[in-house]
């Protein structure tokens, strides 16, 4: 990196806020998806929007690619510096600026940990609803970029339904404010299109979030089944009965096996083929009845065990079985990839069978965790990245799963985002025209394409030209495997 640029960056952010040491840059070569790596040229830690803006201006001046990064827990390579450049790390902008109890909003900086918002609001009787599984470490800025979900978004909506206003720095360095505390889109919903734009439109530097009152009461149940169909039918019946669960999580036999064998032993029935974790919340009056209605539906669908949590401890233990899935699986092999696919919920049984067959065919262990309420499926696939053929299999299996989900009417990503990981599959879902319209919108915000390049759009498409889609060839996979094995490789700018 140009010495002049480093000096300018030091001048803007302070010497201790600029990292260019080779060793230190290593840890920034990937985010929560270590399958793809590339070292940035420099990492900066601005403390306010002004500094972010100045850094962006320098990047524009020298035509250097740049991208934002939160906690780096993303699972689609959103914070991967594909073409090197400057990573703008927002973790030192981590203050909760204010909580307005009466108006039920909070104004926070992007580096604030998702869970910390709820923890700060808890004594005031409020909480922040979107709860991605990484909420103990992920940043709210990252949530805004990815439009993160979580088990409770079934009832309460995703991040986009809870963002009222932002301050952001555009790709050209202008500091803009969008939205308003009433959450009323005025004119065009620019805020709505920025949320979920995966850091390719603007870098958010301040966020006004909606807070909700904590529910009066919560009921959590676990139901165990001997067949996936019965489990799936229960979900349909619960919905048909007009019940709106706060969360509805499905775990399969392999997940239960892994969890019960690990320190997350939650007491899930070990011989269950499938289990449902169901939560309802709201006013105390009527919750018992709703809970009883759910128990009845479970039994009617031949659940052989239904457990209702008696207190907070038991509730926490039931959730441990679901939240521990990730970690429990992680212990079984050196590497694990958490896939993210979304299907119409009614198609789950057939999709699970297909994934099971794929698992056998590829010889890779797979466990499935499914947000049954909204069709978001997470196949957890075990492998060992030290073996190139396994990496190749992972990439091939990933593609097959995505194609399957699209075939049954679903899409590529329910909550992790497209990022770098899934960009070459966008044409499974979108036509050229669709992608061109999206590119057009991107160009309004990011005309030179310097902000977070090589994300979301298929590789063969540049900013200005769009080619025809070809099936991903083995050669493509081979190239990617190379980059994984041989270490960081700088792509031509």
């Amino acid at each position, binding site marked *: 990196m140009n010495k002049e640029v480093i000096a300018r960056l030091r001048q803007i952010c302070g010497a201790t806020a600029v*990292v260019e*040491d080779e*060793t*230190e840059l*290593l*840890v*920034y070569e*990937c*985010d*929560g998806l*270590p399958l793809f790596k590339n070292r940035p040229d420099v990492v900066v*830690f601005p403390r306010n929007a002004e500094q972010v803006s100045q850094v962006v201006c320098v990047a524009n001046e020298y035509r250097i690619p740049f991208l934002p990064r939160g*906690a*780096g*827990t993303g699972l689609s390579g959103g914070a991967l510096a594909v073409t090197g450049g400057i990573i703008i*790390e927002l*973790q*030192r902008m*981590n203050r909760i600026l204010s909580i307005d109890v009466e108006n039920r909003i909070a104004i926070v900086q992007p*580096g604030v*940990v998702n*869970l*910390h918002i709820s923890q700060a609001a808890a004594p005031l009787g409020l909480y922040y609803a979107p709860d991605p599984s*990484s909420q*103990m*470490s*992920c940043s709210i800025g990252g949530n805004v970029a990815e439009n993160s979900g979580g088990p409770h978004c079934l009832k309460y909506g995703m991040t986009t339904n809870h963002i009222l206003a932002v301050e952001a720095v555009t790709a050209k360095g202008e500091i803009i404010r969008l939205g308003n505390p009433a959450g009323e889109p005025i004119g065009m919903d620019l805020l709505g299109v920025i949320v979920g734009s995966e850091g390719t439109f603007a870098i958010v530097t301040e966020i006004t979030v909606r807070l909700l009152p904590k529910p009066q009461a919560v009921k959590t149940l676990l139901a165990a089944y001997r067949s996936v169909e019965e489990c799936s039918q229960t979900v349909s019946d619960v919905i048909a009965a007009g019940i709106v669960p706060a969360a509805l999580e499905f775990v399969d036999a392999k997940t239960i096996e892994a969890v019960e064998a*690990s*320190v*997350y032993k939650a007491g899930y029935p070990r011989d269950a083929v499938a289990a449902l974790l169901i939560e309802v919340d709201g006013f105390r009056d009527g919750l018992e009845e709703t809970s009883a209605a759910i128990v009845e539906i479970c039994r009617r669908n031949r659940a052989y065990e239904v457990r209702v949590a008696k207190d907070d401890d038991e509730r926490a233990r039931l959730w441990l079985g679901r*939240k*521990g899935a*990730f*970690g*429990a699986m*992680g*212990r079984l092999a*050196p*590497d*694990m990839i958490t896939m993210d696919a979304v299907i119409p919920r009614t198609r789950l049984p057939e999709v699970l069978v297909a994934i099971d067959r794929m698992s056998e065919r590829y010889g890779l262990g797979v466990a499935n965790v499914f947000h049954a309420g909204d069709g978001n499926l997470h196949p957890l696939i075990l492998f060992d990245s030290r073996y190139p053929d396994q990496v190749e299999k992972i990439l091939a299996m990933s593609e097959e799963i995505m194609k399957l989900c699209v075939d049954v009417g679903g899409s590529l990503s329910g909550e992790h985002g497209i990022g770098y990981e899934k960009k070459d599959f966008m044409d499974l879902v979108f036509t050229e025209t669709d992608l061109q319209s999206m590119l057009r919108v991107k160009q309004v915000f990011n005309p030179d394409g310097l902000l977070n390049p090589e994300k979301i759009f298929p590789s063969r498409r540049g900013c200005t030209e769009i080619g025809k889609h070809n099936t991903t060839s083995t050669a493509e996979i081979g190239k990617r495997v190379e980059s994984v094995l041989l*270490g960081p490789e700088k792509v031509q700018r």
Partner: protein
Amino acid sequence: MTTASTEEKKAPLYLDCIHCGLCLSSCPTYRVLGSEMDSPRGRIYLMRAFDEGRAKITDSFVEHMFRCLDCRACETACPSGVHFGHMMEEMRGKIVEDRSAHWIARLVLNHVFPYPNRFQFASRLLQLYRVSGIQNFVRSTGLLQRIAPGMAAAEALMPAVEMERGVPLDSHYRAQGKKLGTVAFFTGCVMNSMMGSINKASVRLLTAAGYDVVVPGRQICCGALANHAGLRETAKAMAVSNIAAFPVRELDAIIINAAGCGSMLKEYPLLVDGASEFSLKVKDISEFLVATRIFDCLKKPLKRRVGYDDPCHLIHGQGVKNEPRKLLKAIPGIEFVEVEAADQCCGSAGIYNITQNELSMEILDRKIEKIQKARIDILATGNPGCMFQFKYGAQKAGMDLDVVHPVELLERSLGDSNEHN
């Protein structure tokens, strides 16, 4: 059996890490600095990179490794159960092999701590320094601050060494009332020399609970500080000495009242072979007492607001969390207050508050803030380093706060209910 083979046998521990990042916000240094290389995930990544030949032991590499407090809060947060503490200690060992530790560290950790007599002597010197007025003089001139700020920081943190001696080696105490068994007492070096009354209180509690207490004469410092500093060979030698000093088979338990030491003793099997029998008997005094009749002996009321801070090596290193709280809450008249973020490191971390003073103070400030919010009279915590750190922090903040070991409060409560505190 040589000890080197213990390390070579294992598959690389870093493979347990799935790079999810859930550990980040549990790490005190990440919370302060916000940089990935000062996070557990980042440090593991560097360890792996070093192993794979992608990183070398450079100045920045060493800096980030030694900035770690080794508090192991990340282990508690990790969904995959990564053994971070062990990995960090091994890595530091490799670093020290590559470039030696600081000469003062080597002098003190290799040549003073492992030798009880030398340690006693050094602590008496410290006592003299304080009591004779030399300390006041040095502090009043502010000279140290100007010529060696690092030493000034160390000096400021220096504990006021008690006059009272601890528990003599080779001593033996009888159970009060019906005898239920025999335990050995691990005196620790710092505790026995500088906070002797705490050890005496510990023994008194154990006998009240119905146990004979033996104090083996050949025990030495547990070796934690040496291990954390990367002086692995010294630590291993100390482990071997201690294991030999205790008649493990004759004991119901080996009791330790310092969290840092307890964690080290329980993990001797990671350092040397043949340590399992010994380590399985090691119990922190709180986890031991909580299963005894001590509750019947707590008679004298203590009408104060008392908070408890979890020493990292007790809650993360040993998984002991509820036991000390249960014991304290059992003291008649006590008003137990749960302090916010009690499970977060205080920044003491052995000698970290000397070697990384600035960061240590930043971390301490955040803890003091939370303690102030709790409005307590007494803070109890079961580790000497933490006690020194909190005493310093409270004094700096002008707080009227007593910092004690939980056994001190329990001991005060022993006896007739007619007497009051």
